[in-house]
């Protein structure tokens, strides 16, 4: 009988795990949708900012604008975007693996690491990397201001000549079932390819240079905001898939356990009946 009770308890615990994973999956799905909406809303702003930069930048001498000026690369900054929590399949490990490879390639001591999310922060601080800034605990209620603040730190490092190039490594949302691992150069800003050479007859106030100077940080901030949203959507999508798999697995386990439980129960009944039959036969005799 002990075996029967044991099995019953296991079925109960697996069922409650299944309920939890199912709920987590549903929560993740809702979060993906929310993040997607935010991404959609941010698009006109980023498109218009880029468009303006492309229109004005060709008219000014880029030598005077630091954020677009290329220089010899002595030091790099790498921004690694991960999540605060696990339970999302290989979401965090794949980002961290790529970041580590990139850092080792250039030299550990010449790369400043900016960590977004607890996972990256924990990993890189423990392993003696040059972690300059860590941001976490903001995913739940992240706003554009968070992205702004993060951008300002790396723009500052670039302007102070502490680093000569800035890269971002993150997961880009493709579909619910797949993410693309991305590595993108954010600084210096490279716009030459989409230059819009049409000559516009515009008035500028105060002047083109000042306008571009105020536009470029805006462009970087909204880009950071979008990358954070991409990563957040991917995280929740990965969690959704992971939780879906967990729910399926729990279902399988419950099925097996139930079969085992029924077998054990049948066995117990058979033994009991045998006992009764042999007992009554003994009485007849």
């Amino acid at each position, binding site marked *: 009988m002990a075996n029967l009770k044991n099995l019953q308890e296991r079925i109960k615990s697996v069922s409650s795990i299944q309920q939890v994973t199912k709920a987590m999956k549903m929560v993740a799905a809702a979060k993906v949708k929310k993040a997607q909406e935010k991404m959609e809303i941010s698009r006109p702003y*980023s498109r218009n900012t880029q468009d*303006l930069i492309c229109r004005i930048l060709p008219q000014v001498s880029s030598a005077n604008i630091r954020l677009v000026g290329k220089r010899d690369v002595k030091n790099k900054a790498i921004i690694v975007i991960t999540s605060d929590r696990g339970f999302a399949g290989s979401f965090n490990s794949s980002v961290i693996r790529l970041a580590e490879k990139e850092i080792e390639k250039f030299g550990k001591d010449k790369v400043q690491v900016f960590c977004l999310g607890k996972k990256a922060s924990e990993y890189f601080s423990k392993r003696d990397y040059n972690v300059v800034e860590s941001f976490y605990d903001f995913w739940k209620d992240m706003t554009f201001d968070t992205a702004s603040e993060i951008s300002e730190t790396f723009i500052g490092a670039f302007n102070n000549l502490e680093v000569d190039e800035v890269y971002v490594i993150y997961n880009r949302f493709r579909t619910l079932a797949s993410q693309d691992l991305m590595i993108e150069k954010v600084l210096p800003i490279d716009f030459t390819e989409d230059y819009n050479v049409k000559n516009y007859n*515009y008035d500028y106030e105060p002047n083109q240079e000042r306008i571009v100077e105020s536009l470029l940080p805006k462009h970087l901030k909204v880009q950071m905001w979008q990358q954070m949203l991409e990563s957040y959507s991917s995280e929740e999508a990965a969690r959704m898939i992971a939780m879906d798999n967990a729910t399926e697995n729990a279902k399988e386990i419950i099925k097996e356990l139930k079969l085992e439980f029924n077998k054990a129960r049948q066995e117990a009944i058979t033994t009991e009946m045998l006992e009764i039959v042999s007992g009554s036969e003994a009485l007849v005799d």
Partner: protein
Amino acid sequence: MKSLFSLDIVTPTHSFSFDNVTYVKCPGSEGYFGIMKNHTNSILNLKEGVISVKTEEKEIQFSCSAGIADINSDSTDDIPDKVLLLVENAQELEK
């Protein structure tokens, strides 16, 4: 012929759109300025302040952070004038 133009106030987290605007007052980096139909094509820096939008029916005010104004007008009346205000933050002010 009414002198109306369209206005978009765009931020990374939300946008406001109007198509029957008669007058907009914006906080330019060198002082407040007004925009009406057939304004010269211009791109201007904005600083923090209050944007006042006058449409045919009402007047609405927004507080905004620093940003950029992009004014596109066409001398012909076929293409409606378009004013775009890119700011990081804009909130409608209660009256």
